[in-house]
């Protein structure tokens, strides 16, 4: 099967999976079930495309679908502040950073060779069988209860961060971690002074 047919089959399977998830959700849990199916298929489809595509640019953009799907699930769960943070940080920050790093990597045309794909399929099936066995052992599907939404507001989260009996120490440590990571990233990725001298001697920059 050549590459184009592979892609077409893969995307058709993704589309039908999404439609089936939405229909099943609509049948079992109404409009919210349909929305759950929509966002869940977005999430899983983006993740599958991310590890399927050979070019890193396509993987990064399909990861955007995953991040947006997870943000939709956050909204569905009532955490609208988290959804905003997810979109701002992941899509606006991390993904742009990764697309910048993609400039360094040519597409790896040998990525999807048969032994590696076979190993991947075995890994996926094994992982899903493990998870499915665990879930089937634990969950009583007939009595799966519906829960009230655990909504959070931004004020509650902010108050919990800054209360003395809350998470204030972790909050400050997070600030320290961000600062350290910023300095470390600049230090690791900078050009050494010797590189700069070489460049000026060659007339660049």
């Amino acid at each position, binding site marked *: 099967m050549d590459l184009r047919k592979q892609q077409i089959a893969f995307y058709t399977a993704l589309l039908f999976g999404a439609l089936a998830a939405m229909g099943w959700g609509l049948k079992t849990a109404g409009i919210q079930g349909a929305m759950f199916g929509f966002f869940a298929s977005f999430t899983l489809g983006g993740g599958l495309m991310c590890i399927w595509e050979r070019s890193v640019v396509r993987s990064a953009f399909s*990861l955007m679908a995953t991040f947006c799907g997870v943000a939709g699930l956050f909204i569905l769960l009532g955490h609208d502040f988290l959804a905003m943070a997810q979109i701002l940080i992941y899509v606006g920050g991390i993904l742009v950073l990764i697309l910048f790093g993609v400039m360094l990597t040519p597409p790896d045309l040998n990525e999807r060779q048969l032994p590696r794909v076979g190993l991947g399929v075995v890994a996926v099936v094994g992982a899903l069988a493990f998870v499915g066995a665990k879930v089937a052992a634990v969950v009583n599907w007939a009595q799966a209860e519906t829960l009230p939404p655990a909504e959070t507001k931004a004020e509650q989260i902010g108050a919990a961060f800054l209360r003395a009996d809350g998470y204030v120490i972790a909050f400050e440590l997070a600030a320290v971690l961000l600062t350290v990571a910023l300095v470390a990233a600049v230090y690791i*990725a900078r050009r050494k002074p010797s590189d700069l001298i070489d460049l000026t001697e060659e007339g660049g920059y």
Partner: protein
Amino acid sequence: MTVPNEHLLFLAAILFAIGVCGFFVRRNSIMVLLSVELMLNAANLTFLAGSRMHSTAARPELSGPIFAIFVILVAAVEAGVGLALVIALFRRKQTVSLDQLNELGD
């Protein structure tokens, strides 16, 4: 939301499995970073499902979303430092393929 909690946990588990799969199958170091991001997202979903399991309408449980915020923060830090490492590696070796970076192995 009227979807049962188990479906959410199942979704997070599948997303985590996809991330693990990408982590082991792909040989590009940037793709390995992306797979780690997938796994962190799955962990976030699991945190929120657990918080939903233990909260009532009168007293919402806040530790799940707060842990999710910390996970997002650590993911940002990891992406920044990881990309810096990849750039430094590329400057030294002219490659980011994990198959060719085996000085410390064998």
